[in-house]
């Protein structure tokens, strides 16, 4: 089974966010760049399944040169190849179009993404890519294995409210992987250094015929959320705080 894993580099923390006059993104200083959490789980599951089924795993991302680190992490975890779409996109649909166009140029049976990125928090890209590729999809997947029938996979996904559902999907398919089941492994420094020497293929939006998209959302403003009008902050030393809190708790019990 040939598997493409879509990953995103996200900022560990953010300083001085602002909206440029073009209204097409949020600018900020990123404290550090890390792989998005659910994408890390997706990567782990994808590489494992590709190996188990005798196929290849390709790790894919969309972003500027600065985000290559996530691809190197993928190579360090033994992905067979890495691919970057060279574009800085904020709008989930635009990102999905770029990724779908890149995926269409590859041979694949399965695409795995994470459920949601920690920066834009849209939870939109994975399923959008599936629909653009015209393949069946499942969201919030926690387990994945080859199906009993040929050209299928068997997945377990969360339905919410403590329920899970087991489904069989025809291949090719796309699944959005949820955090949780198998903790992502750390890449040893030596392997990471070797991964940094491996080639990373780059595609531009022009090469993918995915450029020049009209903006469908405009970013107007970015701000810290309103101060809560409900929360009463209790100050003092821990003993004082505990005593006030206990009083508040006893009031309602």
């Amino acid at each position, binding site marked *: 089974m040939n598997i493409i894993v879509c990953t995103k580099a996200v900022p560990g923390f953010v300083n001085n966010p602002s909206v440029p006059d073009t209204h097409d993104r949020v600018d900020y200083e990123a404290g550090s760049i890390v792989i998005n959490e659910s994408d890390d789980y997706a990567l782990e599951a994808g590489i494992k399944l590709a190996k188990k089924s005798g196929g290849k795993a390709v790790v894919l991302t969309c972003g500027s040169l600065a985000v290559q680190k996530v691809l190197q992490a993928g190579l360090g975890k033994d992905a067979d190849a890495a691919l970057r779409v060279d574009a800085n996109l904020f709008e989930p649909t635009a990102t999905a179009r770029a990724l779908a166009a890149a995926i269409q140029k590859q041979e694949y049976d399965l695409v795995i993404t994470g459920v949601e990125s920690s920066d834009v928090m849209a939870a939109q890209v994975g399923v959008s890519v599936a629909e653009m590729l015209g393949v069946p999809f499942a969201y919030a997947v926690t387990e994945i294995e080859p199906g009993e029938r040929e050209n299928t996979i068997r997945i377990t996904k969360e339905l919410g409210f403590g329920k899970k559902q087991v489904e069989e999907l025809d291949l090719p398919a796309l699944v959005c992987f949820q955090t949780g089941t198998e903790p992502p492994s750390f890449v040893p420094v030596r392997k990471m250094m070797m991964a940094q020497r491996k080639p990373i293929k780059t595609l531009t939006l022009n090469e993918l015929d995915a450029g020049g998209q009209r903006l469908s959302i405009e970013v107007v*403003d*970015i701000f810290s*959320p*309103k101060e809560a009008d409900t929360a009463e902050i209790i100050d003092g030393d821990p003993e004082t705080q505990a005593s006030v809190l206990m009083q508040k708790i006893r009031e309602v019990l």
Partner: protein
Amino acid sequence: MKGDILVIAEHRNAVLDNITWELIGKGRSLADQWGTRLAVLVVGSELDALVDNLKSSGVDLVIPVQHSLLKDYNAELYTTATAQVCRDFNPALVLMGYTYLGMEIGPAVAVRLGGTMVSNCCELEAEGDHLVVIRSVFGGTLQVKTRLVGAQPDMLSIVKGALPRDTPAARDAVVEFPAIDFDEKRLRSRILEILAIDTGGIDITKAKILVSAGRGIGGPDKIQLLRDLADALGGELACSRPVADMCWLPAAHQVGISASTVTPDVYIACGISGASQHIAAMRDSGRIIAINKDPNAPIFRVAHYGIVGDVLEVIPALIEQAKS
């Protein structure tokens, strides 16, 4: 951009989820502002009671998609049904929950219709010719105001509990059953089994007091401290998703839209930053107490009482107080 509005209803065990009422309330006020119609789409296999309920909910039109194939939730069929109803009814705006349903089928329907989807919204208003929404970014520490300027329909998924639950005056709603052709042979996904998460006899939804652990407590060795507090207060232990993911506590303790929704009298969030999926499942608790080092943590926006500080300093003091 003014036009008809379609709400996608959510239900389980023949009961409509609260998000449906929240969406209908907002949809009604927008439709009144625009002078347009508000419809609600409900998908399932046995819908008679739900349709009766929705008829008097303040909508103009109820669109039930009823079929034996829709007994269990199949994302492929739901997408087909929703997209086709949207094509027939042609709404300018589609409202759904930022729930597992909205996350799974929303983007697929939006791509199929060529519409403009914005997810995870907590506020929406019509400003001039465009909809403007506010949504959380960067883990909820910041919010972005966004204007929708793309092709219609505009499709928004809204965080559960973010909108007030208005109850619009009932009106005489029309019920229209659309004819939808589900070609079973062309289905590319099949439901094999539905599983309930193993709770091991733990039911946190019945507890009056929950002491809830988040990643911010620092490590699995700190769980015992929280357990001591829960015991001293006569409550139960709960946790956020990362804590269950890292196996610091079994999944039966997890609070969130994927796991349990809880409404105890007292919810003590310890080192929980407050992802929207967590907040949506505990915000209706009687008293919410948040203890967190980060004063900007989103949990403080739903808490009644907050302590900005170290869980490890406050909890021992609290245990002493509870015992005295």
